[in-house]
Structure formats: structure tokens, C-alpha cells
């Protein structure tokens, strides 16, 4: 568990250092994720402590969204002023994305239920 958490933090830290050093326009944790993925490819299996740590965090992923989501209290004016374009854009765009992704995947892999 502790070794797993340490590995996650080390990957994130390297990611954060790399994006700043190389000025890559990608969030540090994404680079950390790619590094860990490459590590797993080379390693050929998921070490037990890493599995325990990542499973523990990802099982409660939704909770981690809450503090940022509560930031809504700082955005009440924006939401009150621009609620219409925001609602239409989010609804239309989300439905379009679902349709496009699903259709392209069906086109490429066929449609076995």
C-alpha cells in the first residue's frame, strides 16, 4: 500500500518536473500516468502494493471531485448570467460526443451486441 502510494507520487512528481522543464502544454499528472503506464508495460504485471493503492483511490474517485465542484459558489454570477449558452452547449455537445464516438467505434468494429 505505502509502496504503491509512493510510486504514484513519484510518477506525478516526475511528470510535474518534466512539464515545467520541457514546457509541455499537458497537465503533470497526465505525464505521470503515461510514465506509470510505460513502467507497467516494461514490468509486465501490476505489483500488488500498486494495485491496492490505485484501487483504493479510484474506488472513491467521485469523492475527489467534490472540493473542486463546490467551487460553484464562486461562479454563481457567471452561471446566473450565462446559464442558457452553458446549458445548451453542455447538453448538445455531450450528446453529440456520445453519438460520434459510438458511431465511429461501430463503423470500425462492427455491431455485435
Amino acid at each position, binding site marked *: 500500500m505505502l509502496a504503491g502510494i509512493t510510486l*504514484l507520487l513519484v510518477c506525478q512528481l516526475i511528470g510535474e518536473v518534466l512539464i515545467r522543464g520541457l514546457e509541455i502544454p499537458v497537465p503533470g499528472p497526465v505525464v505521470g500516468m503515461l510514465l506509470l503506464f510505460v513502467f507497467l508495460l516494461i514490468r509486465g504485471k501490476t505489483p500488488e502494493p500498486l494495485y491496492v493503492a490505485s484501487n483504493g483511490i479510484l474506488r472513491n*474517485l467521485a469523492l475527489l471531485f467534490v472540493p473542486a465542484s463546490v467551487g460553484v459558489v464562486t461562479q454563481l454570477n457567471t452561471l446566473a448570467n450565462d446559464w442558457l449558452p*452553458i446549458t445548451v452547449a453542455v447538453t448538445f455537445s455531450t450528446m453529440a460526443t456520445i453519438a460520434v464516438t459510438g458511431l465511429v467505434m461501430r463503423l470500425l468494429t462492427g455491431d455485435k451486441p
Partner: protein
Amino acid sequence: VSRDLHFLWVYLETSPLLWLTVTLVAYQVATWIFERLGRKPIVNPVLVATIIISIALLETGTDYHTYFNGAQFVHFLLGPAVVALAVPLYTHMSTLRRTWPAVLIALSAGSVTAAISAVATAWAMGAPLSVVLSLAPKSVTSPIAMGISERIGGTPALTAVLVILTGVVGAITGGWVLDMVRVRSAQARGLALGTASHGIGTTAAMQMSEVAGAYSGLAMGLNGAVTAIIIPMVIPVLVKWLG
């Protein structure tokens, strides 16, 4: 007594303990409501917990900065959580070996559609530039979306809210949209939900089938990476073009 209460409040206000505890309690109450109402996407736990906490903040006159002083300990874990997505990605990668080129193409098409359709719609309806830019990364998981938003000149706090809204819309409408365009395979349905509406869509996909859930989780992780690469290249060009 009111003097004692005042001192108690001063203590609670300056310590991270109160709002950290409130965050965990509110989330568990929200999860309980979600389970009791048959896991309906409309009572999404993040949405309900956010409403509970926001009301508590407004009622007690507490500002977001004070709240975040406590809640930051939960928020911090989002970074390691994104790194941790490599594990399910790797686990599924071995079982998805044959479909990964199709997955990458469909996912990239979805990623571009998500950003461009949101930006173009909001812009056409006259939303200010900061709102338009905050909408661009709305389909990816919060920590990545907030990072992208910051880089392209959006408002990360607004993006966080839009991400949750997107997740709930995707979870509610996803099954219906996929039926309408006659996409029936569990792979394609899961991939579409995870690409368009991240973790909240993935919760809905897991209720469809195990395969749909696996593809959705994979899509959520991959789309975070793909969108983080595509948006900073595409959106500034699109914004310049729209004027």
C-alpha cells in the same frame, strides 16, 4: 453560552477539520441517497454533495477559500488518482489488444467533437470568452480538465462545475442517444460514455454491463491524455478563427 459558541466557531473556522469532515459526511449522505433512489443519474453523489456543502457555506457565510483550506486534503488526491488510471488502463490493455486502433480513432473523434461543439455552440450563443474556453475540456475528468482550462485561459473553478454537469447529462441521456443512433455493442456504448462524460458516465456504463464499464473506464483515462494534448493545439486556433 453564546460566547462559548462564538469561541467554538472561531476554532472550527480556522481549523481544516470542520470542512474536511463536512466534505466526507456530505459525500456519504449523497451516496446513501443515490443508493436509496436506485442509482438514478439525476441524484449523482457529486452533484448532491456539492449542493449540500454549498448550502452549508452560504448559510454560515463561509467563503470558498476557508472551505478549501479543509477540503484541499481530498482535492490533492486527484493528482495521484489520475496517475493511478494507468493501472486499469494497463489491465484492460491486455484484453483489448485487438481493438485498440479502433478505440484510439473513435476516442480522438469524440475528443475533438466534445471540444469543438461545446466551444462553437457557446460562442454562437454569445457567451463571454472565459466561459467559452472553460467549456472546452468539459468532457474529461476534473483534475485534467482544470489543468487544461488554466493553460488555455479558462476559469478552472467554472470548468470543474461544467465537468460535473457534463457527467450528469451524459449519464442521463447516454443510453437514449446510443439507442437513437443504433449503437448496440457494449464496447462502443462504454467507449462513448467514458469519452463524453468521464467517471460519471463510467458509473452509468458499469450498470449496462461489465464490458461497457471496462471500455468506459479505459476511455476516461485515455481521453484525459488525448484531450490534454489536442485542446491546447486546437482551441487557440479555433478561437482566433471565430474572432
